[in-house]
């Protein structure tokens, strides 16, 4: 107890980690539902439908299924690395979330003032890239340790792809770092506050001066997370399931979760670097916007209430009724005067992240997969030169004093 009293930071961090993990894992689970629903509607299908109303309990059912399936290990596999790989992939993917600031507000946990971020370090961008750069081992080691042809090829492809696109993703971000003159997430976000001089209705988000950098970033980010159209490491038409062919049960689920966690991280980074993080796109004088999160949730609650009444199955009514109660409850909570200013930052941040996640799913539903040589030549011959040129142009901009620093 004495130790804890001496180090309150440890306890506060622990509380924040537990909360963030709970929220992140729930979001991960429902992201799979979201993706399946959106892709299904793009392809004129219904998507998950039978487990719960609108398939809302599908993630839960999937989780239970993964937990109770037989966990096979190929007899020729390298046991230690075979087990290590999924743990590495998932834990590194979740670690990056610790660096993401969700809002500017100071909250009080157990009487201690603290920010809405777990690790508030001034080299945030660098550390995020450091953690993602070792994330590739999860995939590479999984491919090698399975001791099987398809996983090996998938692992090889993935390491080559990740090395290639990591160069572009880092270079495309440097332009933003030059503009903000900092590696600290908070300072990068604060630098985007306000509006442009000559266009006073457009927020000073970095996406406007760094549009080329943003396009390079989002392309390389999709490749880094191994998503369609760059999902060559698990191209099912060629490699069965790529690096995780031999994995089953919960180890497979861990790879799946790692992929979605990486999607969330990359979307958060795009929001912070290019879209003003937690900043609202509207002027600060519009104070009525403080009621927006609560109002939106109440509207959602009204719709689900109508939907509840429409259902014919008793269970579906029960589930949707629960969702309705949740929406009304959290909506009312968001309208409390003490809560309103605190949730402003997280609200805008999460809205932007959700938009990016939708974009991810949208590309998956729309674009066909690249061929492997196309992927490589695209990365090295187009993306890398363009992001280099963007960096050169931004530096020249500074050098000749076309913009003032800061």
């Amino acid at each position, binding site marked *: 107890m004495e130790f804890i009293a001496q*180090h309150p930071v440890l306890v506060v961090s622990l509380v924040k980690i537990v909360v963030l993990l709970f929220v992140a894992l729930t979001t991960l689970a429902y992201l799979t539902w979201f993706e399946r629903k959106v892709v299904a509607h793009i392809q004129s299908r219904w998507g998950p439908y039978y487990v719960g109303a609108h398939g809302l309990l599908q993630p839960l059912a999937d989780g239970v299924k993964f937990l109770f399936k037989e966990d096979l290990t190929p007899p020729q596999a*390298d046991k230690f*690395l075979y087990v*290590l790989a999924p743990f590495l992939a998932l834990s590194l993917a979740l670690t990056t979330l610790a660096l993401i600031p969700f809002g500017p507000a100071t909250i009080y946990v157990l009487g201690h003032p603290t920010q809405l971020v777990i690790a508030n*370090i*001034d*080299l945030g961008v*660098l*550390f995020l*890239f*450091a*953690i993602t*750069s*070792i994330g*590739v*081992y999860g995939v*590479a*080691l999984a*491919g*090698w*340790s399975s001791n099987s042809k398809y996983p*090996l090829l998938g*692992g*090889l492809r993935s*390491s*080559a792809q*990740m*090395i290639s696109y*990591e160069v572009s993703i880092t270079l495309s971000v440097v332009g933003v770092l030059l503009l903000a003159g*900092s*590696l*600290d997430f908070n300072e990068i976000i604060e630098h985007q506050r306000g509006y442009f001089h000559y266009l006073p209705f457009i927020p000073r988000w970095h996406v406007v001066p760094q549009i080329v950098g943003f396009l390079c970033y989002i392309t390389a980010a999709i490749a880094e997370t191994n998503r369609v159209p760059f999902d060559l490491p698990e191209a099912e038409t060629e490699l069965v399931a790529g690096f995780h062919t031999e994995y089953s049960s919960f180890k497979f689920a861990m790879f799946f979760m790692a992929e979605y966690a990486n999607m969330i991280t990359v979307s958060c980074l795009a929001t912070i670097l290019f879209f003003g993080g937690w900043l609202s796109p509207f002027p600060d004088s519009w104070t009525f916007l403080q009621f927006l999160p609560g109002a939106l949730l109440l509207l959602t609650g009204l719709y689900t209430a109508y939907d509840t009444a429409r259902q014919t199955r008793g269970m579906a009514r029960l589930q949707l009724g629960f969702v309705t109660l949740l929406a009304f409850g959290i909506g009312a909570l968001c309208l409390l005067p003490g809560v309103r200013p605190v949730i402003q930052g997280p609200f805008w941040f999460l809205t932007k992240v959700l938009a990016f996640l939708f974009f991810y799913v949208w590309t998956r539903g729309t674009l066909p997969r690249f061929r492997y040589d196309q992927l490589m030549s695209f990365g090295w011959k187009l993306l890398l030169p363009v992001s280099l040129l963007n960096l050169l142009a931004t530096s020249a901009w500074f050098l000749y004093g076309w913009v003032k620093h800061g």
Partner: protein
Amino acid sequence: MNIPILLFFIFALLAVAGALLLILAREPIHSAVALILVMVALAALYLLLGAPFIAAVQIIVYAGAIMVLFVFVIMLLNAGVEERTNWSKVAKYAGLPLGLFLLLYLGHWLARSFVGGTVANGSGALATAQSTRELSFLLFQKYMFPFEATSILILIAILGALVLAKREP
């Protein structure tokens, strides 16, 4: 027991264990994974020394880029279990005493130095962005020429490898 000392010993032990595993492992890929462990543990030690920039770069460059290439090559060539020979006589009678001597020598100087003390009582842990700024001034002003010369050297090495690989038989 304060936290920096505890962290220092944890990561120091991890680094030493990784280094031993690197030498003793017979599968090349196990050696590579052990080397990654060493790199990451070293990065943590840099962090404790108050050099967050160096720590991040250590992970990005060594653990993230160079070791990925190592693992890639091992996977590509499908390198098998390494063969062991018996100890050579030179290693037995000259190497072992020399190694012991080096260890004692290092231990002697480490015991006399102050670096360990600063790390252990945590006063080395000054994580500021200032250090990054100072480092970049040093790199791009004072040591501009050696820095650029090194990059050109690396570029020449890459070109050389390309020329060798592309040569017609």
